[in-house]
C-alpha cells in the first residue's frame, strides 16, 4: 500500500513539475531564447529526486529551510543539465521550483499511510495541473493576439518564435499597427458604427422587452402559457436559417448596408431571451408594491415606469450588458447584410481585411485587440451582472 502511494506520489508530482518547467521553457522560447530541447527525460528524473528528497526530509526540517535548500540545489542541477540561458530564465526556474516545493511541503512518509492517499494525491495534482493547464490554454491565444499586434510581419516571418518586445523603441513605433488601422483602414468609423449598433440594440430591445416581460409576468390574457413557453423555442432557431429570406427581403426593401437593418435584426434576435430573463425577475417583485401603485392612481404605464423599472435595475443591467455583448460580437448578419465598407461593423471590417492576403497580420491582430478589448473590459468590470445574464441566456451560443 505504501509502495503504491509512494509511486503515485513520485510520478504525479514529477509530471506536474515537468509540465511547469515545459510551459516555462515554451514561454521563454517565445521571448527569443534559442531552446531546441525540452529535456523531458532529465527533468523528469530530477523531478523524482526532488519529490523524493522533500518527502524523506518531511517535517524533520523547518519548512522554510527545507524549501529553500532543496530549491537551490535543484536549480543548480537544472542549470547544469540544460542549455545556457540568460539569468532571468534561471530566476524564473527558481521561482517555479519554489512554488512546487511549497505545494508539496506537507507530504511526508507518514502521510502516505493514510486512507485513500493515492486518490487524494492524484486529485491534488490534477487540481494544480488543471488550473495551470486551463489558464495556459485560454490565455495563450489572447497573449499571441496582443503581442502580434506589436510586432512586424517581417520580424515574424523571419522568426515566428520571437515575440519579445523592444520597449526601448519609440512608443509610436510600438503602436504603429494601431495608428495604421485607424489612419489607413478607417477603424475609427467602424468602432463608431459598432458602438452605435450595439447601444442602439440595447435601447430598442429594452424598450420592447420591458413592457412585454411585464405583461407575461403579471397580466392575465388569452394565450399566455403558449406565449411564455414558445419564447425559448423561438430563440433556439438558428440565425443561419433566417439569413436567406431576410437577405432577399432586405435587398428588396433596400435595408441592406444600413445600420437600421442591423438594428432590426439584432433586436428581434435578442428580444426573446431578454423577455425571458426580465419576466423571471419581474415575478419576484412583491405584487403588493404594485397594488399600492394602483391605489395611488397610476396607470399600467406609470407602474412600469415608476415601480417596476427602479426595482429591477440589476436585472435590466444584466440584460443590457448581455444584449450589448451579443450585438457587439455578432458576425453572421453583418457578413450577410453589409458589403459596403462605409457601413461595416468592427467584426465585418476585420473579416474584410483578411480577404486581402496582403494585409500584414499585425494589423489584423491590432483590429482583433480593438474588437476584443471593450468586451473583456466590460466583462471583468461587470462580471457579476454578466454572469447572471449568461446563465439566464444560456441558450445563446
Amino acid at each position, binding site marked *: 500500500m505504501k509502495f503504491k502511494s509512494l509511486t503515485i506520489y513520485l510520478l504525479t508530482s514529477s509530471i506536474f513539475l515537468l509540465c511547469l518547467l515545459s510551459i516555462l521553457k*515554451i514561454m521563454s*522560447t*517565445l521571448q527569443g531564447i534559442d531552446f*531546441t*530541447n*525540452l529535456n523531458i527525460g532529465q527533468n523528469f528524473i530530477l523531478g523524482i529526486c526532488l519529490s523524493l528528497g522533500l518527502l524523506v526530509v518531511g517535517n524533520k526540517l523547518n519548512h522554510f529551510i527545507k524549501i529553500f535548500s532543496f530549491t537551490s540545489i535543484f536549480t543548480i542541477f537544472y542549470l547544469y543539465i540544460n542549455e545556457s540561458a540568460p539569468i532571468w530564465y534561471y530566476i524564473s526556474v527558481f521561482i517555479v521550483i519554489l512554488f512546487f516545493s511549497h505545494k508539496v511541503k506537507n507530504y511526508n512518509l507518514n502521510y502516505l499511510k493514510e*486512507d*485513500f492517499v493515492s*486518490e487524494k494525491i492524484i486529485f491534488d495534482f490534477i487540481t494544480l495541473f488543471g*488550473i495551470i493547464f*486551463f*489558464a495556459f490554454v*485560454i*490565455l495563450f*491565444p489572447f497573449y499571441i493576439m496582443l503581442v502580434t499586434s506589436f510586432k512586424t510581419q517581417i520580424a515574424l516571418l523571419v522568426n515566428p*518564435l520571437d515575440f519579445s518586445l523592444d520597449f526601448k523603441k519609440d512608443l509610436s513605433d510600438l503602436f504603429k499597427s494601431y495608428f495604421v488601422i485607424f489612419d489607413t483602414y478607417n477603424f475609427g468609423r467602424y468602432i463608431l458604427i459598432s458602438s452605435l449598433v450595439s447601444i442602439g440594440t440595447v435601447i430598442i430591445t429594452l424598450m*420592447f*422587452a420591458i*413592457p*412585454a416581460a411585464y*405583461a*407575461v409576468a403579471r397580466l*392575465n390574457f388569452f394565450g*399566455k402559457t403558449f*406565449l411564455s413557453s414558445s419564447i425559448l423555442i*423561438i430563440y*433556439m432557431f*438558428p440565425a*443561419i436559417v*433566417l*439569413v*436567406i*429570406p431576410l*437577405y*432577399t427581403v432586405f435587398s428588396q426593401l433596400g435595408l441592406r448596408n444600413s445600420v437600421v437593418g442591423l438594428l432590426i435584426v439584432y433586436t*428581434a*434576435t435578442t*428580444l426573446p431571451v431578454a423577455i425571458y430573463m426580465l419576466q423571471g425577475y419581474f415575478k419576484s417583485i412583491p405584487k403588493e408594491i404594485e397594488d399600492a401603485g394602483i391605489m395611488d392612481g397610476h396607470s399600467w404605464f406609470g407602474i412600469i415606469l415608476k415601480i417596476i423599472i427602479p426595482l429591477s435595475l440589476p436585472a435590466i443591467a444584466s440584460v443590457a450588458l448581455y444584449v450589448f455583448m451579443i450585438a*457587439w*460580437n455578432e*458576425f453572421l448578419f453583418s*457578413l*450577410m447584410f453589409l458589403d459596403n465598407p462605409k457601413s461595416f461593423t*468592427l*467584426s465585418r471590417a*476585420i*473579416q474584410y481585411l*483578411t480577404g486581402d492576403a496582403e494585409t500584414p497580420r499585425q494589423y489584423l*491582430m491590432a*483590429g*482583433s485587440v480593438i*474588437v*476584443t478589448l471593450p468586451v*473583456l473590459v466590460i466583462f*471583468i468590470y461587470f462580471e457579476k451582472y454578466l*454572469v447572471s445574464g*449568461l*446563465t439566464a441566456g444560456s*441558450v445563446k*451560443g
Partner: protein
Amino acid sequence: MSDTLSKIEKRTAYTLLLPAVFLVFSIILFPIFANIWISFKEVSLKDIRIPEPRAKKIVKSISDNNSELKIVYKLRNSSLIQKISDVEFKDKLPSNVIPVDLDSRCEFKSKIIKCQFGEWKAKYRENFEVLIKDENNNEIDKEVIKSQKPSLSGKADNILLTTNFTLKNFKKVFYENDFLDLLLTTFYFTFFGTIGAIFFGILAAQLVNQNFYGRSFMRSILLFPYVGPVVALAYTWTLLLDPNSGTFNALMVNFNIFDEPINLLGQKYMVMNIFGFELKLRLALTTVIFFEIWRYFPLAFLFILARLQAVPKDLYEAAEVDGAGPLKKFIHITLPQITAIISILFMIRFIWNFNKFEDIFLLTGGASGTRTLPINVYQQGFAISDIGMGSAVSIVIVLLLIIFMFIYFKLIGKKANEI
C-alpha cells in the same frame, strides 16, 4: 366590475406585447416560413433584384451655337432573365426648349416628354434619341439638360412572389450534394464538440469549486473565450496554427515533436499508424472541434459550477465519515447532482453546435472536410448564388431541429422545469 377590469387587463397585456411579438414574428417566424416558399422555387441571387427599367442620359451637340441638341437615352432592362411591362418614361425640358420630330411612342406636354414603351424583354437595350431645340434659337445650357434625370417606371413580376414551384432543389440537396457526407460531418462536429465542451466544463467546474488562491480571477479567465468576439478569436487561432509561420507549428518543430509543420486547418485527413492499424483522422474537422470546445466549454463550466455550489456540504462530510475517497465522492455525490444539468446542457449545446456557422466559416470556410449543413446553406445561397437551394438546405436544418427539440422536450423537458 371585475369583468371590465379583466378586459382592461387583457387589452393592456396585448398592447404591451404587440411591438415585441410583431418584431419577433416578422424577423424570426416569417423567415422560417418564407424559407419553405423559397425552397420550392428556382431562384438565384441575381433574381432577387426586382427588374427595373434604366436610362443613361447623354447630351450631344449638333449645331455650333448649341441651339439644337441631341439627347441619347441608353435604355435597358436591368434584369437578364425577366421582362418588364408597361414601361413609362418621363423627362422634363427647360422652358422654351421643345423636342423636334418626337418618336411616335411619345408625347410632349407642359415641358414633359412622356413615352409609353410597352414591354421590354429580358436584356432589352435601346438607344433612344430625342432632338431638342430652343424656340428662340438661343443657346441651350448642356449642364441643365444633363442634370435633369429621366424617371422610368414599369411593372415586373417579383420572382419571389410568382407561383411556379419545383421540387428540383430538394432533389439536388439529397442526390447531388453529397448529402450523406454533409450529414455525417455535421453530426461528427456537433457530437464531439458537445461532449468535449461538457467534459472540460465538468473538469473546470470541479477545479474552481475548490478553495485556492486566485479562484475568482480564475473564474473570470475561464469565461474569456466565451465572451470574446468570434472573429478575433478565430483569426488568432488561424494565425497560431498557420503551417508556414504559425507559432504552434514553429514550436512543435523547434522542440522536435513534429518532423515538419502540419497544416492543421487545411489538411483533410491525417493517417495515423497505431499498432499496425491505419487510422484516418479528419484533421481539419478535429481542429475545428477543438476550437469549438475551447470556445464553449466555459458555458458548461458556468452552469455546472452553479449547480456544484448548491450541493450541500454535509453530503460530502457524511461520505467522508463513511470512508469514501475523493473518487467515490465524485461518482456517488457530485455526478448524480449534476446529471440533470448535464443532460440539459447536452441538448442545448447539441442544438447550437448543430447550427454553428461562424466558427467553421472563419477557420476553414468549409474547406478540407469541414462542410456542415449551416456552411452548406451559405455556400449554396451565396457562393454558388442558388438561393432556392440554400433555402432547401435550411429547411433540412429546421426539420432536424424540430426532431431534436421534440426529443428534448420528451426526455428532459420536465427535468428542466424542476431546476
